[in-house]
Structures are given as C-alpha cells and as structure tokens.
C-alpha cells in the first residue's frame, strides 16, 4: 500500500528531523522538558510515519523486525543491569556518576543513561507493536 509521491517525499523529508528531535529530547531530558518516554515515542513516530506513507513491506527491508525486537529486549536488560551497578554506590539505582555543575549536560549522572535506555525501550516497543499488527493485517 503506497500513498502519492507528495506524501512519500514529505514523509522521507520529515522523518530524519523527527529522529534528531527525539534524540535531543532524550539526551537533554534532565535539563529541559522532555525525557525518556516522550523522546522514545517521537523516535517510534519517525518509523511509523514511514510505515503509513510507504507501506509495511517497504519499511520492513530497512528496519528489520528482528533488529527492533533485539533493541527492545536488550534495553530492558541494560536497565536492570544499570540498577544493579548502583549497588556499588550503596543501593539499587544509586546515582554513582553524579557531578558537574547543575544545568549542564553532564550534571545528570545516571539520569542520562536511564533516559536513553527508556527512550530506546519505548521507541522499539511501539515500533514492534505496529510491526506485529501490520504483519497480521497484511496477511489477512
């Protein structure tokens, strides 16, 4: 299922900027409004926009379902491993990298890592949800 060439070209034009904006929201989540969940949803939307304009069978060749599944499973393991690494500082999810002047990018410590992992998890989860539903819809 393909849309017209205007829709396809504008979706191709907008999608990289959506990836950039989502990455900005995730990485700067502790100094400005944003965070892991919001940035992750925008990362997922950049793929879903390509799916709605180009069709699932075209997008599937670039963003493999196995890769999305791997990212989703790996990020949840990384999050639990990060929590266990906090044990060396005293407790579960202890912020052991804390430092720097407040307001700068490196002031968050593990907050940046938690936000990045949550962003990957949420983005991969929503993309995988659309993949699974669309794979079933196109088969029927």
């Amino acid at each position: 299922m393909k849309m017209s060439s205007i829709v396809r070209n504008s979706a191709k034009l907008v999608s990289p900027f959506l990836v950039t904006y989502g990455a900005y929201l995730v990485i700067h989540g502790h100094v400005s409004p944003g965070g892991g969940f919001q940035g992750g949803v925008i990362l997922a939307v950049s793929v879903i926009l390509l799916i709605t304009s180009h069709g699932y069978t075209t997008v599937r060749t670039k963003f493999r379902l196995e890769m999305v599944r791997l990212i989703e499973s790996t990020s949840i393991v990384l999050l639990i491993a990060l929590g266990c690494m906090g044990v060396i500082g005293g407790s579960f999810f202890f912020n052991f990298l804390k430092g720097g002047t407040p307001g700068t990018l490196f002031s968050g410590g593990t907050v940046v890592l938690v936000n990045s992992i949550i962003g990957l998890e949420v983005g991969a989860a929503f993309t995988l949800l659309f993949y699974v539903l669309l794979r079933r819809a196109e088969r029927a």
Partner: protein
Amino acid sequence: MLLVVLAALLLQLDYSREGNGSYAYYVSHPDEVGISNLVASVLADWRAYDTMGEAIVLFTAILGVYMALGRRDR
C-alpha cells in the same frame, strides 16, 4: 518471629519528611538534587525503581501482543 524483627527494623528507619513536599525540598536543597529538571530528577533518580517497573510493564505488554498475534504461519 521473623516478622516482628523485620517490623522492628523497619520502624527504626527515618521516616521524617519535608513539610511542604518535594518542591520545598528541591528549593531548599538545590546542591543535593543537582538536576535542573525536577520531573526528570524524580522519575530517573529518586524513583528510578518505579521507572524500571513501568518499562517492565511495557515490555510485558508488547511481549503479550507478540505472543498472541505475531505467529508467522497460519
């Protein structure tokens, strides 16, 4: 017996809190928080355990959808 010991241990902990909630604590201890976004500080630092639970809930939901609908052959 074990429950009584555990309860005695847990009651010994310090449950005192700031009078006006977390925002007053944030204003009065800016150096201890050190993160300029209060929402991100609560979500990913103080309550990171809760955030991990949310991520696991999402992972389990997607896992259920994948198990129910993601079969290749039918």
